[in-house]
């Protein structure tokens, strides 16, 4: 369809198509309500179908554009996405945060675009040859910090975590030793473990052991340990200093069942819907929990609950399998690509898609906290779909053009 080159990754493409089809089907079911014997269908599913066709056309053009053009566009696109993130802060809030642009019925989320642009920008900046590890990390942090700072103001905590995860994956792909990555995340682990002394001691000893094993200088080890101990010591004081409602907000984020009428309500409802699907599910369009509208917005963030309820363990496992194969294929691509910049970018893209898929499904089955992260390729939403597909398209384009510039 797109090209006859043997380098075209048909497997990846077919997997993408399957996911997109599954998405349209799931949205059709999620936007259907049954009253008596009549079905009422909201128009989300055909909007999504139009988005899918639009996305496929966009991918076709992406494969046709010469690589040099894309390369030239990365920096302007990054700057442009930063500008949109600034502008969106001055727009009126929708559902309590400044996340969306609204054009008629179209909602556009600039942080979606910023994800892809930032990954490509980081890959471009840190892939120069003969660059020290410190310099790579510093540049990577700086480029990521700008959008992350703007998104945290919106506020959108979930998306900022996505940025951080993909940055770490890119560092890994840039051959930064894992011990450095461990050092980067160690303060976060210190904060978490600081509430349980035993875990904290185990963590610090493990850290020291690994640092010694990887032959970090004694000065470096001491600094790292002192910083971590300091953080874990002050964390309880900061926690005590917070107002009760702030503490509650954090606790509810970590354990939504503490607030069964708010955040916990959705989780519990999603669990009931998915759990009641059992092995084979209740059948297409027949989910009782869905039809009763216990879950608001089940065509977006909670679409997995509809799939789980109507197609059961078999159906949701198939979806998981397709996702797994898809991501596996992406990680294979990281190995296949030899151009450093493309390898790094692919790692970032893979990490951000994996993380979003994991977080969203985990949230639906109640094993990770609720965040407003939709399920890639399946949840309703045009800008989300376009950016995720473009990201995969970039990887496919890298694979396609492999060999010309070894």
């Amino acid at each position: 369809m797109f090209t006859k080159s043997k380098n075209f990754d048909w497997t990846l493409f077919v997997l993408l198509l399957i996911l997109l089809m599954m998405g349209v089907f799931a949205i059709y079911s999620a936007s259907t309500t049954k009253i008596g014997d009549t079905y009422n269908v909201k128009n989300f599913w055909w909007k999504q179908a139009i988005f899918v066709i639009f996305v496929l056309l966009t991918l076709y053009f992406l494969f046709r554009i010469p690589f040099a053009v894309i390369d030239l566009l990365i920096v302007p696109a990054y700057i442009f996405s930063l500008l949109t993130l600034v502008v969106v802060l001055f727009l009126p809030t929708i559902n309590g945060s400044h996340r969306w642009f609204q054009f008629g019925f179209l909602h556009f989320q600039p942080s979606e675009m910023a994800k892809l642009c930032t990954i490509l920008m980081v890959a471009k900046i840190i892939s120069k040859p003969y660059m020290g590890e410190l310099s790579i990390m510093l540049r990577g942090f700086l480029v990521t910090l700008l959008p992350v700072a703007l998104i945290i103001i919106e506020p959108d905590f979930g998306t900022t975590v996505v940025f951080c995860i993909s940055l770490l994956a890119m560092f890994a792909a840039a051959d930064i030793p894992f011990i450095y990555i461990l050092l980067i995340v160690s303060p976060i682990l210190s904060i978490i473990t600081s509430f349980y002394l035993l875990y904290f001691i185990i963590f610090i000893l493990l850290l020291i052991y690994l640092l010694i094993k990887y032959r970090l200088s004694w000065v470096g080890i001491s600094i790292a340990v002192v910083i971590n101990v300091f953080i874990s010591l002050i964390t309880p004081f900061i926690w005590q200093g917070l107002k009760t409602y702030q503490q509650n907000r954090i606790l509810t984020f970590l354990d939504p069942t503490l607030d069964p009428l708010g955040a916990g309500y959705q989780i519990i409802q999603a669990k009931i819907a998915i759990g009641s699907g059992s092995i084979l599910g209740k059948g297409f369009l027949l989910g009782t929990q869905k039809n009763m509208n216990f879950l608001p917005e089940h065509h977006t963030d909670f679409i997995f609950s509809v799939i789980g309820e109507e197609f059961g363990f078999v159906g949701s496992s198939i979806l998981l399998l397709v996702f797994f194969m898809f991501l596996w294929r992406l990680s294979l691509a990281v190995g296949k690509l030899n151009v450093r910049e493309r390898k790094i970018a692919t790692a970032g893209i893979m990490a951000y898609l994996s993380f979003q898929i994991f977080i969203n499904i985990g949230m639906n089955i109640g094993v990770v906290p609720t965040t407003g992260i939709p399920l890639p390729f399946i949840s309703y939403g045009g800008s989300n779909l376009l950016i995720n597909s473009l990201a995969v398209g970039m990887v496919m384009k890298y694979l396609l053009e492999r060999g010309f510039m070894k």
Partner: protein
Amino acid sequence: MKTNLNPPNVFKIILAVLFLFLISSLFELQIIKGNYYHQIAERNFVRLNRIPATRGEIYDRNYKPVVINIPSLNLYLTPAKIKNVKSLMQFLQFNYGIDPAEVDSLVYNNRFRSYQDILIAENTDYDTMMRVSEDLNYYPSLNFKVETTRQYLIPNHFTGYVGRINADEYSRVKEEGYSINSSIGKTGLEKYYEVLLHGKDGNEIIQVDATGKSLNLFKNNLVQQPENGLSLVLTMDSDLQKYASSVFPGGVNGAIAVIDVKTGGILAYSSKPDFDQNMMMTKINKDDWNRISNDPNKPMLDRVIHGVYPPGSVFKALTASIGLERGVITQYSLDRPCTGGLMIGNRFFRCWSRAGHGSLSVEDALRVSCDVFFYDLSLKLNLDDFQKFVFANHLAQRTGIDLPNERQGLFPNTAWYKKHYGKYTGIIGPKVNLSIGQGEIQVSPLQICAYYAALANNGKWIRPHLLDRAIGNKTILYRDLNQKLVTQLPVSANTLRIIHEGLYKVVNAPGGTGGAARVEGADVYGKTGSAENHVGSPTHAWFVGYYVTDTPQIAVCVFMENAGHGGSSAAPIAGQIMRYYHDHIENNKTKMVAEK
């Protein structure tokens, strides 16, 4: 070892771990616990249920109820449970007279909220309830709920009434926890103090389990108790209110306001004709609605603050005080004698007494309400200064009473005349008219009453208000909610003394126009007014005055549309109200003091 740990392999390992975790969680959820969740889902078991807060009630100053909550039987429809839409429509049309098209659109509009109850009818009467209950088996989508509704014990214009929230109001207040079935204050105090009265609805998760077993799915916090609304205690005295309403002659439109001079609290507030607000509490039928809204006497118009009228001679107290303040006249000046009128330019301005009053002091001019005295005075005033003075006395200005949509009234200045009557219009004629409260001037009865209350209170103007305090889980006083309640009128003590003297003579001296308002055992000060409005129809009758024992107590304003002369129509009614106050309230007060 080292070669195996290259980045792509690490990614693969992480991927595999994450997906194993997901698939095993899914396995646990759907296969191990699948049956359990299946049962829960089949029992359709969790519901978020709203517990409506009880709306605050309204009491008078002695805690006698004015507005109370009574139980009401409301019919709800759950669209998801409809079996046969056609027969349901017929059933509702037969029993409640609801248009089938309305049911159809309700069901359509709520098709994506099909498990939410929709309110169909309120205040079902007993007979209908019995009739409908028999057939309720056939219509599982219908159910009755016992809720509360408002009962208004005194027909009046200040409490207003509540109604079901409409789309505009809902979009404005949905953040504050209102639902599509909430009721909200539509007018009057119910609207003005909505925030205090409404309270906050609670929520509960109810478990609908066939066997009555609790499944303990939630850790705790199952119920958020509602916060009930605060009740209002008014400054109003319901006995005086009822009496004032009853002495107002039938067939006349008008208004009565009684203000406590020392606090600014309103003791009685009546607009005639009135209507029964309880009519608004059920689905009002079209005939009743048309009858009320097309009535030429406009029973729904609140004439105390929403009606503005020329004040006529009751305005002369203000004209006299600006004359004294600006030094245009003094207490003793006997200016031009009244010969039954005054020629100004080429126009002859008549005094109401064709015979004329002769030379008058300002006190006597007030007593006999001589027009020529004030015509003459107004010639020496600047119109723009006049307007500023009027505004500073809170006339033709909103009083800021705690009711919505108060009207301002009008007192024009030079610019206003230029704008409306052209650049070269003369303003002397209009100014002469304004000086006796005629012409373009329009004020509300409440403004006049508050002005005279301020005169009685040594020039201290207090913003009139109905709320004394809100009580409930906390107490809020009216003065906590409002700053700047008191302002001083721009008049000196001497001026006030002269005006008081004049107003005293109006009621008590021979030849005074307000003799009918006299009260045995106390002093009444006041002023009559007969304001011309339309050529040919009788004048508006005004009387406004205040009642003084040791200190000034209350100010009373009686306004009657097209009822003739203030002295003969309005003053007797004001007199009756003050006498009632004297006999029932003032005497009780002294008795209580004596008992202590």
